[in-house]
Structure formats: structure tokens, C-alpha cells
């Protein structure tokens, strides 16, 4: 457990906004994530959490600093780093089974590993929906398929970009448990971007708190009480309070100019 899988060192990413002004999405961000660890990244919008995830995925590249997976510099995408998008990322022209198989086909190993498709359909609990098209299944089911599609390539790291953001709270709780189950099954390192504090505490070994303008990591909080975690438990609520306080600090409001 002590081996670092993902190492981010001094990463800076600057975008240009519509007016042509530079926008620092990330400034000098460094973080290490251990192999098999589950890390949640949380923070207000504009703090660069999705940018950080996209950089790890290789969908984007930094202006300064470097990112490494198992010691190798990340440049460009690789099935070693699976990515689950927010929503609506399933190929609408493929059935559930073929969406999951897409990862195998893209790498050209479909013939050898065909059996994995059925295995993952069973793992995500979608037996009987193999031949359904994405528009025929619910949002929660669609996200399970998206997760299976990324996992079937047996990635070293799974990057999840608010995969449950658009789901109702019951579906979300259900999918969170499914995610933990898959995590235990494969031992994949998980990095989850979320704006839901409860979700972050419920799932993660560590919660990374980010703050905006410029995007940087303001705190890293270990969550060390055992799973399954009770959402109404004392430890859980205490942790929730801690993180809320940190987040309040993280998105520091400007001092009022005058008081009455």
C-alpha cells in the first residue's frame, strides 16, 4: 500500500478565457496517490479539480510541472488510466454489452477477452440489459456501464469525474456501494472528483480539498474509520463538520469592506 501510483509535482495549467485573459486553473499543485488508494477530490466550482483529473488522464497537458504513473511521465491518454465522464458519455449507437466491449475492441483484444464482457455486466448488475441501447436505460445504469467500460481494460487508475453528479440521491447511494464493491474486486486506484461532501467521506481513504483562483490543494484529510461507513454516525458527522470548515476557509470570502 505504500507504493505511490500517481505522482503530481508542481503542476500549473493556465487557460485563456474568452476575453483573452489568462486563467490559472491550477498553480503549483503537488499530490501523491498510493497504489490501491481511494482518493476524493472536493472543492467549489472553478477550483481546478476536473482540470487535475484531465491532466492525470492525459486529455490535457500542463504548462509546468510533471505527472507520473508508476514513475513514468504521463503524456497522452492510455487505457492504463481509465476515465469515467459526468454523464451521457456512452456511445448511443452501441448496446450496453457493446459499449462495455468498446474498451477491448479499441485495444484490439476483443477476441481474446470476450468473456470479460459478461463478467462485468454481472459485476455491475445489468444482466438482461445487454442488448438495450443507452436511451433505453436509466441514468444510474448508464453510469454503471460507463464505469464497466473503463474497468474492463483493467486500468491501474480509475479517474471519476463527478460520475454521480446528475443522479438522484437513492441511485447515488446505490452506485456508491457498487463503486466500493468494484474497488475491492479489482484493487484499482480510484480518484474521484465530486462536489458532494458526504460522497467524498463515504468512499475515500483521503479527501483532497481544493480552492479556486488560482486552483490549488488547500488540505488533505485522511478518513480512517472503517467501512461500511454510517452516514449518520458520530465519526461521519464530525468529519463532515471538519471538511465543511476547511471548505469555508478554502473558498475564503473577501473581508467585508465595512461593518455596521
Amino acid at each position: 500500500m505504500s507504493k505511490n501510483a500517481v505522482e503530481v509535482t508542481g503542476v500549473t495549467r493556465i487557460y485563456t478565457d474568452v476575453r483573452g485573459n489568462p486563467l490559472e486553473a491550477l498553480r503549483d499543485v503537488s499530490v501523491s496517490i498510493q497504489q490501491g488508494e481511494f482518493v476524493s477530490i472536493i472543492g467549489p466550482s472553478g477550483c481546478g479539480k476536473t482540470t487535475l483529473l484531465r491532466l492525470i488522464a492525459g486529455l490535457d497537458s500542463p504548462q509546468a510541472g510533471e505527472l507520473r504513473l508508476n514513475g513514468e511521465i504521463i503524456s497522452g491518454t492510455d487505457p492504463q488510466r481509465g476515465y469515467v465522464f459526468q454523464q451521457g458519455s456512452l456511445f448511443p449507437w452501441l448496446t450496453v454489452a457493446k459499449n462495455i466491449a468498446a474498451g477491448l475492441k479499441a485495444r484490439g483484444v476483443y477476441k481474446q477477452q470476450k468473456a470479460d464482457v459478461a463478467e462485468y455486466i454481472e459485476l455491475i448488475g445489468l444482466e438482461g440489459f445487454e442488448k438495450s441501447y443507452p436511451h433505453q436505460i436509466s441514468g444510474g445504469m448508464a453510469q454503471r456501464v460507463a464505469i464497466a467500460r473503463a474497468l474492463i481494460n483493467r486500468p491501474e487508475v480509475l479517474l471519476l469525474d463527478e460520475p454521480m453528479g446528475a443522479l438522484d440521491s437513492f441511485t447515488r447511494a446505490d452506485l456508491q456501494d457498487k463503486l466500493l464493491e468494484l474497488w475491492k474486486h479489482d484493487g484499482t486506484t480510484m480518484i474521484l472528483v465530486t462536489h458532494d461532501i458526504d460522497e467524498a467521506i463515504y468512499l475515500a481513504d483521503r479527501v483532497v480539498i481544493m480552492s479556486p483562483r488560482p486552483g490549488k490543494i488547500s488540505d488533505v484529510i485522511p478518513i480512517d474509520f472503517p467501512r461500511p461507513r454510517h452516514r449518520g454516525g458520530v465519526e461521519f458527522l464530525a468529519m463532515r463538520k471538519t471538511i465543511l470548515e476547511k471548505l469555508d476557509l478554502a473558498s475564503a470570502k473577501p473581508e467585508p469592506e465595512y461593518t455596521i
Partner: protein
Amino acid sequence: MKISNTKFLIRTVLTLLGFALAEVGSFAIPTLQNQTFVIRDEAYRAILAGLMVIYLGSGIFSWFSETRRVKYAKRAPFRLFIGLVLLVWDMLGTKFGKLHMPFFPGPSQITWVFVEEWEFLLSNLLYSLRLYAFGFFSGVFLGVGTGILIGWFSKANYWIMPVLKMTGVIPAVAWMPFALNIFPSSFLAGCFLVSMCAWFPIGFQTARGMQATQKVYFEVARTIGGGRFYQLFHVAIPNALPTIFTGVSTANGLAFTTLVMTEMMGARGGLGYYINWAKAWSSYYKVYAAIIIMAILFSIILKIIGAIQNRALIWQRGLTSNVEERG
């Protein structure tokens, strides 16, 4: 919606009634014979009888299924109407000679052409079909090919797209004088014109559909290990399928027009050629016969393309025809 047995029987009778009346009219009233040639009623009567057999058969077939019953019952008034129209037309044209000849012949005269000249009609039909098959499919092939080039390579978009846009607005038949001169046969010239008219809408729509692919699909393809080849054949092209079919439908309509026009102007066979030839002899009833064949042929082609489209686009949300098929 449910249809009771009695109601369904009434609808079946209504369906057959119009054609039955037309048949009775044809037998009961003597045909007004023309001085120049004899009018034969047999083909018309046989077709009426055939229609009655078909609709009776489809009524019996529909009896056992609720959804087919509804469909059949819904169509009854229209079929009755068609029968009555045939009756009136037959009376005015064949029986009492009230229509202006030779431009408006009766149904007997027109349908007899199918018996009298079936060989010549068939050979022209096959000629048209051959021209359509070669011309249209080469147009689809060229159109999709050009569209993929434009949709995938920005260089092709820069150099070919303006050419496609400029030449595309020209009706293909405008190239006719040129086509008839440079191609060794009128068949090849026709092929060229039909494929030209299909090329533009299909090429344009293919490119448009590929360029409209959501970025997230390409990003998914990249993160699961898909290279450029995968992104082209498994993302961009499937994404363009709906608009490709939009292009194919547009092209099909244009292809029918171009096909008939080229046959009328330069070809040595085909339904367009037949119409021209019949017109030269003032045999307008033959023109109508050819038009009826065209209507049937083009409807069948549209049906086939529609069926292919429904199959290929089954994944799309809200395609009503899919839902109907499933139901």
C-alpha cells in the same frame, strides 16, 4: 383501442364495396367503342378482382391481431373512396365517353397496356432499374467517401468543401449536354448524372454529421485506448449515420427526377424513354401506364431504403417507426 367483431366485419365490407361496385359497373354497362381501336376491359376487371382478393385476404389475416385490426379498419374509408373513384372514372371515360380524348383515357384502356405491351414495358422497367442501381449506388459511395474525407481531414474540408458546395447547387441535369457528349454511351451518361445528383446531398450530410460529433465521444475513445482509426470508424462515422440517411433520402428524390429526365432526353430505353416514345404516337394511355409503374417502382425503392434506415438507426431515441415495428 379495440374493434368489435361486428364493427370489423362492417369495415371489411366497406373496404371491398367500392371495388365491387366498380366491377359491377364495368360488367353492367356496355363499353363505348372507339372507331380506331377496340377497348378491352379484361385487364381492368382482373385488377379489380385482384384488389378485392388481396383486401379480403388481408382482412382475414388482420382478424387475429388487435393492432392489425385497428390498422385495417382505419384504412377502410380510404379504400372505399378509391373504389368509388375508379367507378366514376370508368363511367365517364370508358362507358359514356365524357372525358377529353386522347388525353384522359379510362382505366380499361390504361390497364390493357400491361397485357398488350408487357414485354416492352418490362424491358424498359429493367433498363430504368439498372440505371438507378448503378447511378444511385455509385452516388452514395462517392458521397459517403467525399463526406468522410471532408469530415475527417481539415485539408480536405478546406479544398473540397467549397467545390462540393458550388457544384452541389447545380441541378445535375444541367450537365446533360456535356455528359451526352463525353460519355461513350447514353447509359454511362445517365449513370454520371444520377450519381452527380446523389453525390452532393450525401457528401454534405456525411461531413456535417461527422463534424457534429460531441467531443466527449472522442475523449472516451482516447481514454479506452482507441487510436485515430477507432475514432474515425467507431465514433465519427456511426455518429454521422442519421445525417447520412437524411442525405440519402434527399438524394433519392433527386435521383428519381434526374433518372426520368435523362431517359426522356437522351436514352434508348427506360420508363422515361417509354413515355417519350408513347407521347410521340399520341398514345397517352401508355404514358399513364408508365406513370403507374413508376409510382409503384419508386414507392418500393423508398420502402426498402426506409427499412434499411430503420434497421441502421434503431439506436436512436424517438424514431416512431421503430416503436411501431416493435409493437
